[in-house]
């Protein structure tokens, strides 16, 4: 791991420019529940940001707001410095933002290939017909890339294990993400080898120049993969850490609010 701080970048991608994705004072309510209150968040190209917090801290809500599945009630989202309005998942994908949801968003009745290309099916030249063979062959390459062990690509994904399904969701984000990839607990259902694979992929995405946001409850993983750690607590910013200088117990303290550390928001 190169010893660089996230602020100075240090990767080969336009260091020092404004963040790829920037949220300021974002607010989101579910009826009476304030899930997010004045949250600031940013991630730059070639950077992995770990978003951590206790259950119910608002991590998934933040991801869904960026991904367009939930509209924010207040605040601003900027992509490459330009204010954007993300009102639907289509808006987000059009901006090059891809998401792996905590509650996996796969269609169980469709096969692996169909899920990978869902909503973005390839067509044969000059016709309305699906290019099934082209998609299947590309899917094969992607899955092989991730070294995920899938029995066949033409079975409905309902026949796959939780980890295999997660691998498909991650592959889909990796396949389509062109700016930002959000992964909400992507390794929660995975074994040791597959977890390592996903974090390998996360680094690959970062080295490709994407901005990557990973949510995880596993401190060891967070410290291993992140360039910056952002803590949410009860829907508010509760500190930001550099994994190279911070200790895990400091981050845990910020998560649980048991100490005065943090509060950098």
């Amino acid at each position: 791991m190169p010893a660089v701080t996230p602020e100075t970048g240090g990767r080969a991608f336009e260091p020092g420019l404004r963040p790829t994705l920037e949220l300021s004072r974002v607010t989101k309510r579910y009826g009476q529940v304030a899930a997010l209150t004045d949250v600031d968040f940013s991630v730059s190209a070639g950077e992995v940001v770990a978003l951590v917090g206790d259950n119910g801290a608002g991590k998934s809500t933040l991801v869904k707001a960026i991904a367009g599945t939930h509209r924010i009630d207040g605040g601003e989202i900027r992509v490459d410095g330009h204010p954007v309005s993300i009102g639907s998942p289509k808006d987000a994908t059009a901006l090059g933002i891809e998401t792996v949801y905590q509650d996996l968003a796969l269609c169980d009745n469709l096969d692996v290939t169909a899920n990978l290309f869902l909503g973005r099916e390839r067509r044969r030249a000059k016709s309305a017909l699906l290019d099934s063979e082209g998609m299947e062959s590309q899917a094969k390459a992607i899955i092989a890339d991730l070294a995920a062990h899938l029995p066949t690509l033409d079975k409905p994904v309902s026949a796959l294990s939780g980890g295999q399904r997660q691998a498909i969701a991650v592959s889909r984000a990796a396949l389509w993400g062109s700016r930002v990839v959000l992964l909400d607990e992507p390794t929660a259902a995975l074994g040791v080898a597959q977890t390592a694979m996903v974090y390998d992929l996360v680094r690959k995405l970062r080295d490709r120049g994407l901005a990557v946001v990973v949510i995880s409850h596993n401190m060891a993983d967070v410290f291993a993969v992140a360039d910056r750690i952002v803590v949410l607590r009860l829907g508010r910013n509760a500190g930001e850490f550099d994994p190279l200088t911070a200790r895990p117990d400091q981050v845990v303290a910020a998560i649980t609010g048991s100490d005065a550390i943090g509060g950098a928001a």
Partner: protein
Amino acid sequence: MRALLPTARNASVYTVVIGLAIVWIVFQLLNDNYLSARNLSNLLLQIAVLGTLAIGMVMVLVLGEIDLSVGAIAGVSAATLAILITQQGAPAWVAILAALAVGAAIGLLHGTIITAFGIPSFILTLAGLLVWQGVQLAAVGDGGQIPIRDEFVRAIASTYVTPAFGWVLAALVVLGAAAVRVVTRRRRIRNGLDVPPVSNEVVAVAATAVFVGVVTWVLNSYFGIPWVFVLVLALMLGCTVLLGGTSFGRHMYAIGGNREAARRAGIRVKRTTIIVFVLISAIAALAGIIEASRQFSASNALGGGTLQLNAIAAAVIGGTSLFGGRGRIYHALLGALVVGSVQNGLDLLGQPAAIKNIATGVILVIAVVVDALGRRRRIARGATD
């Protein structure tokens, strides 16, 4: 496209085909005339309307919705047709297009209300059933029926393809099936995908040829292939390509399988839903035209009774899931054949309508239980649908 061997995925098809074979054998043992060319030809004429409605039903079921108003839409469409031809003196093609357009407009209305207010299609189309039956009654008027004398309309459900042309059609079907296999095979090879052995493909095409040949031969030994059967097959072909070969169809399966996942994948769920309701209603209107052609009139009972329940039964018996996301267009024909074969057989044996209804109901329960057991197995394996 896959291997010929029974797999978990198409095992249910074999169950249905075996069930159909048993039905045929039992009725043949009870009545020598059951499997005669004449009766089989009649059977095809009898299931044309049911099969057409079931095709539309498969599409809404795949989407995870249902339509309880198709019979009433068929009735309104038939009334439109008869009024335009008999009372307004319109040419047949104008009346047919108008009847289809009325159906499509009803579907547009249903789909728009369902998606705009998030109403279950079950409730909305139940209300639609009442409304459109009322419209049908009012349109047909006190006479109870409007006769249709137009030769073309009458010919739709009562004329046959000449035997020679029937063989031409049969040859085209076999050639088409072979062509699809060849093209698919070439495309798979070009994309570096594995392909089944050539012998499998040859056997599959040969089996298709034998099957199509036998059907054509049997029908030609009576009056020939009914034109209306050609019409239903053409509709099936079109809908099969739509569901299996286009992204629109893919999105229908996605919505039926996991609506939220489809939405998150950027699929326009509402638009797709509206279009499917337009399609099923237009198909129901076509069924109304066929039925009017069979009866030489549009009556106020057309499309009523157990017809639309039988259409749902046919789709589910054929193998389409009531829970959404699973179904194929050919299930409609398969299911309609089962329902039609049982009803036709009971007719031949002189059984009353009561027995026919009970028999259809029992078959439907069996099919739904099979569907529910399959779903439970999938959930037990960890699927979340």
